[in-house]
């Protein structure tokens, strides 16, 4: 049995602790890894684009980070609040903070869906088709329900068969324009989902 003096014990203990600190805990290795992580940030080298949140009329500013892939397609990396915006100062509400998911969700429907009268299934159609369809329906409803003169002989020129509800993301200018357009068609039933 070797004899270990008190002095020897302390010497070995100190050396062992030092060795663990330097190599076992791996300060040099950790430093290398952290440097690598810093260089591999998801948005490193990405293009910053400024945009506006699509959800409500507050109009929070967004920063969208995109990068060109080698095949030429643009990849969306991250969307976050714009710290330079006086509107939201970098913050986003929970819904706005998920704007990224709105953009990249595989369940997102990317074209208008149309179900013809009597059909059992929806089918994807073009925007031209849908806009023509809406225009035709507006024209037909307006023709069928336009009142030029009311029962007492007053000129009224109103469309009674169409109602309009403005979207929640309308700005003041869009709200003005939508109202102007609908009044031009003779609509009297106008509403606005103002969320502010």
């Amino acid at each position, binding site marked *: 049995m070797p004899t270990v003096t008190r002095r020897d014990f302390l010497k070995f203990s100190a050396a062992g602790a030092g060795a663990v600190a330097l190599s076992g805990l791996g300060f040099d290795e950790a430093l290398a890894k952290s440097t690598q992580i810093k260089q591999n940030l998801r948005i490193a080298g990405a293009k910053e684009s400024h945009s506006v949140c699509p959800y409500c009329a507050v109009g929070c500013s967004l920063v969208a980070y995109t990068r060109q892939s080698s095949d030429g397609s643009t990849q969306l990396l991250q969307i976050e609040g714009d710290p330079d915006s006086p509107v939201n100062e970098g913050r986003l509400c929970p819904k706005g903070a998920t704007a990224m998911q709105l953009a990249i969700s595989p369940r997102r429907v990317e074209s208008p869906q149309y179900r013809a009268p009597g059909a059992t299934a929806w089918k994807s159609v073009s925007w031209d088709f849908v806009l023509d369809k809406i225009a035709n329906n507006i024209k037909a409803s307006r*023709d069928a*329900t*336009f*009142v030029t003169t*009311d*029962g007492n002989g007053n000129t009224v020129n*109103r469309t009674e068969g169409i109602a309009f509800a403005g979207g929640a993301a309308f700005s003041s200018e869009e709200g003005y324009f939508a109202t102007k357009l609908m009044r031009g068609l003779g609509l009297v039933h106008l509403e606005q989902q103002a969320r502010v």
Partner: protein
Amino acid sequence: MKVAVILPASIVDAGDYLANARALEAAGAEMIGVDGDPELQWMILAAIAAVTSRVKLRAPSEQRVDLLDRLSRGRALANEPAHERWVPIVLPADRASWAAVLHDHEEAGATGVVVPWDERLIDLLRNPEPEDRSDLLMSTG
């Protein structure tokens, strides 16, 4: 109370004329007829048959009513049905007297009234309640 409307024989703009026929149908008119020369009535009724789907069409005679009946898918009538009684009226001056006239004829047992075309008819048929346009007041502020 049913309402039959007699459109004029003169057509200034075909689009407006046929839009009026469609608007009458949408407003709830029971029957549409045409005034004037029977030969012209057939032509105009055939055009109206093409753009409407529910309203009945008053044919000028029993001759050739079959063709209009097929064109309109069974909506052509040459004579009043035996159990019905239609009363020709002139259009009253305002909504209140329109409601009163309809009420009087209904009390007297008439099936409906036959009235010449007037722009006011669209509103009178769409909104029969006298002066109750609170929906419009609310939406216009």
